C-alpha cells in the first residue's frame, strides 16, 4: 500500500475522478457564467454577445451601488457593533458560576432556527400595530414606528434580526476560547488587585485576540453573502432600502428575466468580495499571530 501510494500513476488514478467532478460542477459552470455576463441572455431566447455593456450598465446602476452600500453597512454593523457585544456577552457568561450551560444553550438557540422562521417571527415582532417592539416603545411614549415599511428603519430592523440570529453562535465560540484560558492568570491578577473590568480588558481580550480575528473574518464573510434574511423579511424593499448585492442580483436575474445582467452582477460581487478579502488580510489578518501562555 505504502509503495503503491508513492506511484504517481496510482495517484493520478485517484485524483482524476475528483478533478473531473470538480471541473464539471465548479469550473465549467463558473466559466459559462462568466460567459453569460457578456451576453444579453434573457433566460429564454438565443444569446447575443454584447461585450462589456452589462458591466457599464452595472457601474451606472444606482440601485446596485445602493445594494453595495447596504452590504457595507452590514459589514460595519457586524464588526463595530456585533463583535464587541459578542465579546462582552461571552465574558459575562464566562463569569457566571451557576447555570452556565443554560445561558450557553439559550444564546445558541437562534442559530439553529431556520432563517425563514426567524424572518417571519421578527416580522410579527416588528408589526406596527400589534408587534411587541412597538407595544414596548409605546409604553415609553414613542410614536408608532413602521419598522419594515419605513425606509429609515427597515435596514436597521433587518440588521438587528440578523445579529440576533448569529450572535449566539459566535458567543459560544468566544466562550470556548475564554474558558480554555488558564485560571492562574486571572487569579494572579485578582490577587494583585485588578478589578473585573481590568482583568477582562487587559488579560482576557488580548489573550483571545486570535479568535476575535476569526470572528471578524466570519462576520465579514457572512455580511457579504447575506441574502436569505433580506428576502424573507422585506425582499429588498421598501424601494431598495434593504437590498443587498445578492438579493438585487437574484431579483434582477430571475424576477425580471435579466440573466445576462444578473451574471454580470455576480461577477462584480465576486470582484468586490476579492477586494475586501485583500483589505482584510492587510489589516485584521495580521492580528492573527499566536498567543502563548
Amino acid at each position: 500500500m505504502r509503495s503503491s501510494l508513492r506511484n504517481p500513476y496510482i495517484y493520478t488514478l485517484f485524483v482524476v475522478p475528483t478533478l473531473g467532478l470538480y471541473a464539471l460542477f465548479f469550473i465549467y459552470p463558473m466559466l459559462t457564467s462568466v460567459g453569460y455576463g457578456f451576453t444579453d441572455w434573457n433566460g429564454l431566447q438565443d444569446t447575443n454577445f454584447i461585450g462589456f455593456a452589462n458591466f457599464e450598465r452595472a457601474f451606472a446602476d444606482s440601485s446596485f451601488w445602493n445594494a453595495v452600500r447596504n452590504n457595507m453597512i452590514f459589514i460595519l454593523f457586524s464588526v463595530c457593533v456585533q463583535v464587541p457585544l459578542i465579546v462582552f456577552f461571552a465574558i459575562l457568561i464566562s463569569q457566571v458560576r451557576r447555570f452556565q450551560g443554560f445561558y450557553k444553550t439559550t444564546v445558541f438557540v437562534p442559530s439553529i432556527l431556520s432563517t425563514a422562521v426567524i424572518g417571519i417571527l421578527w416580522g410579527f415582532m416588528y408589526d406596527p400595530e400589534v408587534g411587541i417592539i412597538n407595544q414596548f416603545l409605546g409604553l415609553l411614549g414613542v410614536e408608532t414606528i413602521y419598522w419594515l415599511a419605513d425606509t429609515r428603519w427597515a435596514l436597521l430592523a433587518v440588521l438587528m434580526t440578523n445579529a440576533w440570529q448569529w450572535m449566539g453562535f459566535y458567543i459560544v465560540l468566544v466562550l470556548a476560547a475564554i474558558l480554555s484560558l488558564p485560571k492562574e492568570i486571572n487569579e494572579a491578577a485578582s490577587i494583585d488587585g485588578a478589578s473585573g473590568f481590568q482583568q477582562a480588558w487587559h488579560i482576557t481580550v488580548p489573550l483571545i485576540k486570535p479568535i476575535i480575528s476569526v470572528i471578524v473574518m466570519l462576520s465579514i464573510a457572512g455580511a457579504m453573502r447575506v441574502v436569505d434574511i433580506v428576502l424573507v423579511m422585506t425582499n429588498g424593499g421598501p424601494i431598495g432600502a434593504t437590498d443587498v448585492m445578492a438579493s438585487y442580483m437574484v431579483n434582477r436575474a430571475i424576477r425580471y428575466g435579466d440573466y445576462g445582467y444578473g451574471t454580470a452582477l455576480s461577477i462584480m460581487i465576486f470582484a468586490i468580495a476579492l477586494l475586501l478579502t485583500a483589505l482584510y488580510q492587510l489589516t485584521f489578518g495580521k492580528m492573527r499571530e499566536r498567543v502563548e501562555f
Partner: protein
Amino acid sequence: MKKQYGLLLLVLLVSLTTVLAGCGGSNAGQGSGANAGTNEAGGTEANADGQAGGEAVENAEPFTVSLRHIQIGDAKKFRKAILDDAIAKAEAEVPGLAFELDGVEDEVNRFTKLPAEMAAGNPPKIFDLFGGEGDALKYADAGRLLDLTPILEELGLADKFLNMGQFTLDGKVYGLPIGGSTEGFFYNKKLFAEYGIEVPTSLEELEQAAETLKANGVTPIAMGSQAAWVPLMLANTLIGRYAGPEAINGFRDGSAAWDSPEVVAAFAKYQEWVDNGYFTKGELGVTYDAMLNEFLAGKAGMMFDGSWRASAFTNPDLVKEITSEDVGYFAMPAVPGGKGDQTAVNGNYSNGYGFSSNLNERELAAVKAFIKHLYNDEMQVRGLLEDALLPSMKLSDPAASEIDTKLEDPVVKQIMETMNAAGEAFSHFDSVVQSDVYSETEQQIQRLIAGRATPQEVGDVLQQAQEAANAK
C-alpha cells in the same frame, strides 16, 4: 497492509449493497404502488364505462402529469375545489393518468419559480400562467408553450372565449384564461351607515367619504403595498380615468406617453391620497393578505381590489366583523377633466393555464382531458357562483339562466351590474407593457408612495424605460 485492503473491500461492499438495496426497494415500492393505482383506475373506469373502458385500462401504463397551481390558502379554497373536480374527471377519462399537484404562492410562481423553470427548459406540464407581454407572449415567443389552436378546434372551444388577446401570438393561442376580473372599490356598508356616508358617485364624494372615515379614526382605503402590484391596480385605474381607457394599450405602441400631463395627473392624484392619509399607514410593509384582513376586521372603510376577492367575504374561515351582506362595490367614479369614457372599468382575462410545449402523446391526451373538463359551462358557472370569478367564456343560454337564478352573493351581483353598466373595459398595463417597463413601474409607484419621487419624475422615468423597451 492486508487488513487495510480488507477494510477498503468491506467499505465498498457495504456501500454497494446499500445502493442496490435502495434501488431494489424503490423499484418494488413503485411497482406495487403502480399496480394498485391501475387496479383502482380500472375499477372506476369499468364501473363508469362498462367493459370497453376496463379493457383499455388494463394495458395502460400509469403515468403522471405535473400540474402547478396557485390555489393555496383559505382565500382560494373554492377555486381549489373546482380545480380538484376537473382533475378527478380528467383522471377518470384518461387511463393511467395521475396529476401531480404542486401548489405555489401566486407571486412566487409568477415571478420566481416559473421564469427559472422556463429558463432551464423544464416547466411543469400544466401550469398557472398570466397572459401578456411579460409572461405568456414572452414564453410563447421562445417556443416554450404548447400551441393550443388545434386542440381548441378539436374540442370545439375555438370561438368560446370572450377575450384571448393576452394569450394570442401571431394568431395562435398559447394559454386559456380561467376567468375574468374587474377592479373597483369594496366598501363596508356598516361603517358607511354609521358615519352617514353615501356611496360615492363622483371623485369629490369619494374623497369626502375618505375624509369622514379618517376623521373617525378609520382607515379610509385598506392598502397593502409591500408587493407593488397591489397599489398599481389603483394607479392603473386612475390612469384609465385621467388619460382614457385607450392610454393603457397606447404605451406599447407609442400613442400614449407616461410623461403626458394626463398620466402624470393620475400619479399626482395617487400621491395626493397618500399625503392625505387615505391609505393604510405603513402600507409599504403591509402584505396583500394583511390588507384583506384589515378590511374584514372592519378597520378600513374601503378597499381597492379585484372582483376575485369577493369570495373572501363568503368564506367562513376569513370573515370576522363583516359578511358579504355588509360589503358593497362600486367602480372608480368619473374624474373631473378625465379623458375618454369615464364609465370604463378594468377588465382582465389574463390569468389561466398554459401548457409545456414538451409533451409526449399521452401527456397531450391528459392536457386535452384537462382542458375539456376545466373549460366548460359547468365549471364557468361554478367559478362565478362559488368563487366570484367572472366567466371567461361565452355561456350557453341554460348556463346563463342558471347564473341568473342561482347567483345570490350580493357582492358578486353588484360587480356584475357594475360591469354591465360600464361603457368599455381596459386591461392591466402589466399585461401590455414589456417586463422592463413593468419592473420600473413597480419601483416608481413605491418611490411615489414613500415620497421619494414626484409624479412628474415617475412619468419621466417610465417614459424613458418605455422608449428603451420599444426600441429593442
